[in-house]
């Protein structure tokens, strides 16, 4: 494994020089379109005026130009050629992009301290759509087809002891839709665990609203059965000085595609996005994240780590970070590291950093995919540790960096055990 620090690209240290008219630190302003259209962090103005006509299009090369809509009809049928679907085997989506999603949705069972409000609501609830808007056809399909949603509210200023546990149990292989809204009201503090188990073919929208000064951790565990297919859009909207930590752990399922995003709407907020995935033979585990620095003085830090073993184990990581023109003082770093344990596995890793202002504290991205580091192995073996044990120690160590971010002991133990099981299946 190469050391990612060598690839670190840091941009920053803005000069105090005044701009030349028509120029920014990034060069000539060729089009007023970006400036005009990049104001809003979410929905509304940020929606590419696709179906309504008359709007100016934002070039598709920018992440800001991605079509967003609550209507399935606004999204063209998928061909697999689309930028955001090019790595996904559509045939294995089992209709999530083509069928009406009216199968039995995974059951939702919430265990939470009394201070947390849990409701089951209809489609017309005012909180639906408060934090998210679909960015792809599969997400829009779920939005159009869900019948009821679970809304979890952490009331203002409540500090929740222990975690809110949401068990989502698959009900079979009929394509279904699921909707969950998590609201952390002002100055509240909570940890929410989304625990996906069983067999399901499901497209899911998770809306996450982190209000001013709130601190929220959301952990999404995908420990599905081998035949599950899961698409999950998890969009978070952050208020002033909000702190949001998001951890994705994908271990089970035939195809799992998680698309987390975090959008800043006011200064002073911070997000940390972590991910861990372990793909076995034939598994497709995909994660595409988006951090939208739409306002000034926010921070983001992204680290996803994956291990792959077995023939046709395939992982995809795409990290889009957008620093809009208004987002002066942004500090962001994203990294993805993959450890390929056997032949025949494939890891795709694409860090994208778009910067529309040079007046930032820092911006960096890194990606490294490698085999075992022979130097690590030599060091451990030179201390008497047999090769097999040393390899396990290294993989465990590699993934442990993410597990130890969870800070819920029961879940950390469970995931450590799950990783051990994955490792035990390795044939060297």
């Amino acid at each position: 494994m190469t050391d990612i620090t060598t690839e670190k690209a840091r941009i920053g240290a803005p000069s105090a020089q005044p701009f030349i008219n028509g120029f920014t630190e990034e060069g000539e302003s060729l089009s007023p379109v970006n400036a005009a259209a990049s104001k809003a962090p979410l929905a509304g103005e940020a929606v590419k005026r696709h179906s309504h006509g008359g709007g100016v299009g934002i070039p598709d090369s920018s992440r800001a130009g991605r079509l967003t809509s609550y209507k399935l009809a606004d999204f063209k049928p998928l061909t697999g050629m689309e930028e955001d679907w090019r790595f996904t085997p559509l045939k294995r989506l089992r209709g999530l992009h083509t069928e009406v999603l009216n199968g039995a949705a995974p059951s939702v069972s919430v265990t939470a301290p009394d201070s947390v409000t849990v409701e089951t609501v209809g489609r017309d609830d005012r909180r639906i759509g408060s934090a998210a808007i679909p960015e792809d056809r599969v997400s829009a399909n779920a939005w159009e087809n869900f019948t009821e949603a679970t809304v979890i509210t952490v009331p203002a200023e409540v500090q929740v002891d222990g975690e809110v546990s949401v068990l989502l149990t698959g009900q079979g292989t009929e394509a279904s839709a699921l909707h969950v809204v998590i609201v952390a009201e002002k100055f509240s503090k909570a940890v929410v665990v989304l625990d996906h188990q069983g067999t399901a073919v499901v497209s899911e929208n998770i809306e996450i609203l982190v209000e001013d000064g709130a601190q929220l951790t959301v952990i999404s565990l995908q420990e599905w059965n081998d035949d599950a297919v899961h698409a999950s859009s998890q969009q978070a909207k952050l208020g002033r000085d909000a702190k949001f930590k998001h951890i994705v752990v994908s271990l089970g399922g035939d195809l799992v595609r998680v698309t987390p995003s975090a959008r800043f709407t006011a200064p002073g907020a911070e997000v940390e996005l972590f991910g861990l995935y372990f793909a076995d033979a034939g598994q497709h585990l995909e994660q595409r994240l988006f951090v939208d620095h739409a306002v000034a003085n926010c921070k983001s830090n992204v680290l996803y780590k994956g291990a792959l073993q077995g023939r046709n184990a395939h992982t995809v990581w795409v990290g889009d970070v957008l620093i809009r023109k208004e987002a002066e003082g942004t500090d962001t770093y994203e990294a993805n590291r993959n450890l390929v344990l056997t032949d025949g596995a494939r890891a795709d890793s694409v860090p994208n950093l778009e910067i529309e202002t040079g007046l930032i504290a820092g911006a960096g991205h890194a990606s490294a995919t490698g085999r075992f580091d022979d130097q690590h192995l030599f060091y451990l073996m030179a201390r008497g540790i047999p090769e097999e044990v040393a390899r396990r120690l290294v993989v465990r160590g590699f993934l442990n960096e993410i597990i130890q971010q969870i800070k819920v002991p029961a879940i950390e133990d469970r995931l450590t055990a799950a990783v051990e099981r994955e490792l035990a299946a390795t044939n060297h």
Partner: protein
Amino acid sequence: MSTLEIKDLHVSIDTEQGTKEILKGVSLTIRTGETHAIMGPNGSGKSTLASTIAGHPRYNVTSGTITLDGEDVLAMSVDERARAGLFLAMQYPVEVPGVSMTNFLRTAKTAIDGEAPKLRTWTKDVKAAMAQLRIDADFTQRNVNEGFSGGEKKRVEILQLELFKPKFAILDETDSGLDVDALKVVSEGVNRAHAEGKMGTLLITHYTRILRYIKPEFVHVFVDGQVVEEGGPELADRLEEEGYDRYATGAGAATIAAASAAAQA
């Protein structure tokens, strides 16, 4: 009483320009209780000898033998060598992210002894050894060598030496990059391990400075992959004054012959 015997060792590495021979026939015998210093200029093959004994895959032994009490070391894998009682304190200890020192030390000790150490005494031993080497207690929670300074890494190497109790310790430029205080601490650690009387030490160094704290009985001078001069501690003193200049690289043997002829005259 154990013996580590190196006989006519030839070692090469593969480079882009082809195979390059680095050790050109090295013979050396170390017994329990002895301290041997190997000294020499940069690029003379000192560290290659250390890595070859430990079994680093980069180095190919083309001829010669290494035996530990008659057992063929070259036939052993890296971990088998360590379990047989060889310990290499590395010049550049590797950072192993995600593996805590506690976990690492216990796993290694278990592998070397063939059984898990008793938890209570082990924890106590680790604590005591760390205190003597002036390593902060919180290092056990940190990942192996991760973010350690150069001096801290070297101290942690010696910590392992003291805890694993090898038959032979090979110290590969453990003194380089250390300030005087750290050098003293590290040397004391080596001397403590040595004082138990069950260990032989091969001390590889570029400088004579460490020899003020660790006293070798034997000094071997390495030039261009060969031992060009051998002697007692007085040889180190001479090197301190004269440096390696008199051993012109590439003409080592001839220089030695001339030097000893001059000494006799």
